[in-house]
């Protein structure tokens, strides 16, 4: 189980609200030290385009992000993005994720992440060994401090 720090989660929610304004999708990457695989210490908000029904991360930003992670010995452990309505893992989510390595987690929040209790309706998907996203229970993979 990966532990998400309170600061990282607070930062993620702040990004969803300040960037999405309750009407646009938004995405953040939860990162932590390479040497501490079960710890998330920060939320990184990428440069991205968005609408009420999609987001797309800027490619140049992503290249630099990968170089920064290498330099910092920090790795993305979970991607989190919002949907306007209920949370699910759409075909677009399946095809456009950041990382395709078995065990990678993708968390989707409902209602643009506005509600403080948005984890109640969240959808967590995990990439399996066959490269297929499978729904998993939140409490089996993530916990919050």
């Amino acid at each position, binding site marked *: 189980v990966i532990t998400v720090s309170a600061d990282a989660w607070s930062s993620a929610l702040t990004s969803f609200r300040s960037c999405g304004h309750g009407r646009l999708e938004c995405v953040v990457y939860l990162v932590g030290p390479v040497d501490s695989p079960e710890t998330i210490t920060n939320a990184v908000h990428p440069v991205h385009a*968005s609408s009420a029904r*999609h987001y797309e991360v800027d490619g*140049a930003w992503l290249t630099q992000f990968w170089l920064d992670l290498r330099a910092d010995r920090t790795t993305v452990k979970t991607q989190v993005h919002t949907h306007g309505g209920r949370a699910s893992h759409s075909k677009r989510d399946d095809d456009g994720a950041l990382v395709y390595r078995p065990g990678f987690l993708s968390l989707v929040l409902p209602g643009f992440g506005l509600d403080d209790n948005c984890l109640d309706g969240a959808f967590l998907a995990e990439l399996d060994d066959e490269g297929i996203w499978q729904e998993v229970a939140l409490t089996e993979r993530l916990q919050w401090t």
Partner: protein
Amino acid sequence: MEPEKSMTENHGTREHFEVVVTFNASEEELGVRPAEQVSKMLEAVIAKFHLTSQPHQMGLFTSSNIQVAGRLPNGQDLHQTVEEAKIEPEQVLVLRQVVVSGGRQ
């Protein structure tokens, strides 16, 4: 008399050399040949990182974000050799999804 330089010592005519590829803070060294197609290089590095899905959507990029291997956002595949891509010994390349997106639609 100065010893003659071997093929592998001469930068311009190397038979093979190493590059470093980084992916989500992991990194792998990859041996490449100047005449090798970048598509083969991409396949090799995807296998090294044990990426099991979406290989056709991956690309290799320089630190200046110039794509040197993989499928371009317009759907065209890059067909060029390592030499044509101007990939240099010990160069650090980024392996990433060409397009990262999501959403309800």
